[in-house]
């Protein structure tokens, strides 16, 4: 008779500290994914809203960038609060990815190498839910690209630290780059759509009466973020945002780290 391998056999004799012990379980990993997902989602929403300043002109958005660095005013040394936020964000990102990675591995193992010969007829799973892994990887690659493009200025000689307006324009004015932004944001929106619905389920914040509302919430938030984020490359490509009357580095007083 075949026996099925259980994790019990490989469990360490000594118990791990509580939080790590808990992290061993898949359900808790999903919780961590949901909580880190909420943090990331909050960041994405704030990021999009802040970027809307692009439409108020170069001065507005560049000052906005500056004030992020200056968070906390004179109470804390400059950029310190921003760095704390960046570290928190990176940590959320890292556990989100680690949990996703280990769950994916586990799931592939649970499913085994043999697959159904007849293509699966999906009834409830939608494109977004089935492509979470791929949309996740796309978003991760995009984040790296996005940082290199606009935070570190690796791709352009015109990049000027602190001149958010001009940097955005110079980047997205090239259509291949605009296309990258559009594609990545579609992936992001799909990721958010399934993630936002899934999050309630994972955290157990559900009530049969509000299940429809949860689905609508996920649709709404994914839709808003999609529209907001797509508007930037489209606006640049469509000429709504341009460099007329803008001198590179014009508002660049003492910006930078």
């Amino acid at each position, binding site marked *: 008779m075949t026996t099925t391998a259980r994790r019990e056999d490989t469990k360490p004799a000594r118990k791990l500290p509580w939080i790590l012990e808990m992290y061993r379980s898949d359900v808790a990993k999903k919780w961590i994914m949901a909580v880190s997902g909420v943090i990331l989602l909050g960041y994405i929403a704030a990021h999009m809203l802040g970027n809307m300043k692009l439409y108020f002109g170069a001065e507005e958005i560049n000052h906005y960038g500056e004030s992020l660095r200056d968070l906390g005013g004179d109470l804390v040394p400059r950029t310190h609060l921003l760095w704390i936020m960046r570290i928190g964000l990176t940590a959320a990102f890292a556990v989100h990815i680690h949990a996703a990675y280990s769950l994916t591995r586990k799931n592939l193992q649970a499913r085994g190498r043999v697959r159904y010969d007849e293509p699966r007829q999906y009834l409830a799973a939608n494109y977004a839910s089935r492509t979470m892994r791929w949309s996740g990887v796309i978003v991760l690659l995009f984040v790296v690209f996005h940082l290199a493009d606009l935070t570190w200025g690796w791709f352009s000689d015109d990049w000027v630290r602190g001149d958010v307006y001009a940097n955005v324009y110079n980047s997205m004015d090239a259509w291949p780059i605009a296309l990258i932004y559009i594609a990545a944001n579609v992936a992001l929106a799909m990721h958010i759509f*399934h993630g936002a619905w899934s999050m309630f389920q994972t*955290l157990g914040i559900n009530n049969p009466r509000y299940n429809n509302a949860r689905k609508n919430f996920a649709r709404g938030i994914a839709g808003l973020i999609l529209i907001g984020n797509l508007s930037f490359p489209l606006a640049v490509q469509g000429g709504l945002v341009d460099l007329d009357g803008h001198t590179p580095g014009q508002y660049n007083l003492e910006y930078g780290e």
Partner: protein
Amino acid sequence: MSKMLNLKLKIWRQNGPHAQGSFLEVDAHDIPEDASFLEMLDVVNERLIADDVEPVTFGHDCREGICGTCGVMINGQAHGPEKGTATCQLHMRKFNDGDEIVIEPWQATSFPILKDLMVDRRAFDRIVEAGGYISAPTGTAPDANEIPIPKEVADTSMDAAACIGCGACVAACPNSAAQLFTSAKLHHLNTLPQGQPERWKRTEAMVETMEDFFGSCTNHGECHEACPKEISLDFIAFMNKDYVKSKIKNRSLASKR
């Protein structure tokens, strides 16, 4: 007399858990449309026997959709195309003359194939043994009406208890997760007043045993679609909530070392 169907069948044959499997292609002619799916297989088997071919092995027993023994993938769908219906209750009138039907066993690492369409689902028993019961030794019970249970509670408990343990949820899940099965058993017992004393111990033990065998939930909802008893996804959310609570409660119970 009922109408007759002529079908092309592709049936998975495999001699044991480690044997190489392959499809048996059969022309099944003159199948009455009032026959159940399993009766159709009976007819095919009788014809195979007449040709001195060993009949196809498949699990089945009550043929009333309640014992949970039967279950195959029919054209890529667990238990076939009719919602809320186990394979034995699926009737051939749901198919059309000339259809090709692909019949495969459940596939998951923790459901090794025993022979042809029959799989080993003992992992489900392990999950129940881990805590899927209320310890009430015979003779200890108080009067049945001593603890009133609100009708709504009894009803939701019954909704979950309707699970027949067939394994379609695992078979339909892209991750081979058994969350619907496990959460149904937990919800059945965890909502009842009698289930409270062991609630947190039960939840922790059952979830962790489940994770020893099966994948994790990515909230596709395929399990619910495949479920012959249409068990609700909400139970999974309740389980997620109870599991994390159990990790905290079980630590704080003074008697727990």
